[in-house]
């Protein structure tokens, strides 16, 4: 004789309403932006990444790391999103989280 105990999963559900952006076919000739929170050595890492992209993908255009508003309080707001969209970038890299 066993005792069965049934109870709810306490984690609830997640609704996915927005698909992730489609990936690019390649990086050649593309325009890439950075959205930086200006923390966790982003000031060193993101420029390094910019140099690497420019070296490895001829014709790629990588915007400066300060092309868009920076800082945790600004990078997630609608105004920054509008600026990113308006800039015509094909992709953005967001950093740095820790």
């Amino acid at each position, binding site marked *: 004789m066993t005792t069965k105990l049934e109870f709810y999963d306490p984690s*609830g559900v997640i609704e996915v309403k927005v698909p992730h952006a489609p990936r690019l076919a390649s990086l050649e000739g593309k325009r890439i932006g950075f959205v930086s929170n200006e923390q966790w050595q982003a000031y060193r890492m993101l420029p390094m990444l910019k140099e690497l992209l420019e070296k490895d993908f001829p014709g790629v255009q990588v915007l400066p790391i300060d092309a868009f508003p920076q800082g945790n309080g600004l990078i997630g707001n609608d105004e920054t999103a509008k600026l990113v969209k308006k800039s015509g970038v094909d992709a953005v890299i967001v950093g740095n989280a820790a």
Partner: protein
Amino acid sequence: MKNAVSGVGLAPDAAMVTFPVNMFMPGSDISAVETRKREFYDGLIKWKSDFVQAGSAKMLSVEGASYEDALTKANNLLLTNLWGDGLPVWPGTKERVDWILQGSVLPRNHVLGKFPPRGGVTTVEICAIALAMAGGRPEYLPVLIAAVEACLVADGFDQLQATSGGPFPAVIVNGPIAKQIRLNSGFGLLGPDPQRPAGASIGRALRMLQQNVGGALPGVGTMAIFGAMRYTNAVFAEDEEGLPPGWQTHAQQRHGYTPGTNSVSVVFASGVTNVRRRGAKKESPEEDALNGMWRMADFMRAPNLAALAGWEKGTPGVMMIAPIVARRMAEIGWTQKSIRDFLWENSRIPMAHMKRAGAPAWIDIDHNPVTRESINLDPWPICQKPDNIVLVVAGGGHPTHSYWLQAHSPTVEGRVIRVPETFERLLTDADRDLGCGDDVCRI
């Protein structure tokens, strides 16, 4: 990061390149960015989400040789799924959750919002499940729901959940409901009390929601380095009967609620500090009050940079003074306003001290222009105006200490607590189950 993107409606498995934390320290070796550059490139051109949309909340099941064995297995299952806090829980069975739901005026499927950063859909039912696990009762549910509502609308709540400073909700309850549900406003109100157990269960349930639904799992969804007060948060009542004549309740002062309104007020605190307020040796009542005020101000005069988030509209913290202290101070002319004014004026920090602590850099990168402007003030006030300081009369009937909950609180959110028509019956049931009433001490 996964929680952050799921919280804005995306699948949680974002394209990420992760490194050990030592790479993010000043002066670190960041050459791994180059050696792993392909991962960045692949994130832009090859990555795709593997996330599968989940359905509605599901039931879990365990079997044991006895009820006790099954209960142990249920606790183990909850822990292995990262849904527990290490202390025993009551699994949220249908019977227990249905019982808890008697405390809600809202339907069980009513959606209160999404709990960040994970973005878990927060229903009344999921609150009842958390309260069941936390050892709660139906009459606690109205307070929990109001606290959850306040949290979900708080400015920057997603960041408060995730930040390394580890803020925790401090829920201040006003109104008759506090005594009715046995919520502590006196001795030991921030800790365990078998005669007034409501705060522990409500706060623990709120933490369960923060972790299980909101994804604030230590080191994963919350980077809280120390995580103090996070078993139960802080849920307590103001001692309204202890307020000196003419003093207003916190709920009235901060939120404009009329006395007698059941309400919560949520501050996000990041630390707790005991202040030995009472003097010694020969002193007059005036000296006792003034010396104590200076000691409180001295504790507040610190570059708590997390409080920048609430510099304009939030609070630098909650100063709790015991009712006997409030009454004695009122008798010699102190008012709520004069206490706040004194604390604000005398907790200002000389800019030279701010500079030696590197504090202006944090002010300079604050997102709020009003806060950034404050860099020109010398001495620098820890908040824009005295009214930002939360002053609460609470604690045991003893004059020796005050208590300072320093804050990381962009706002102080208030919510009215709604109780069902059957609330009186729930209170009667509580008397039956828990014995003595709120004013009866068995000791």
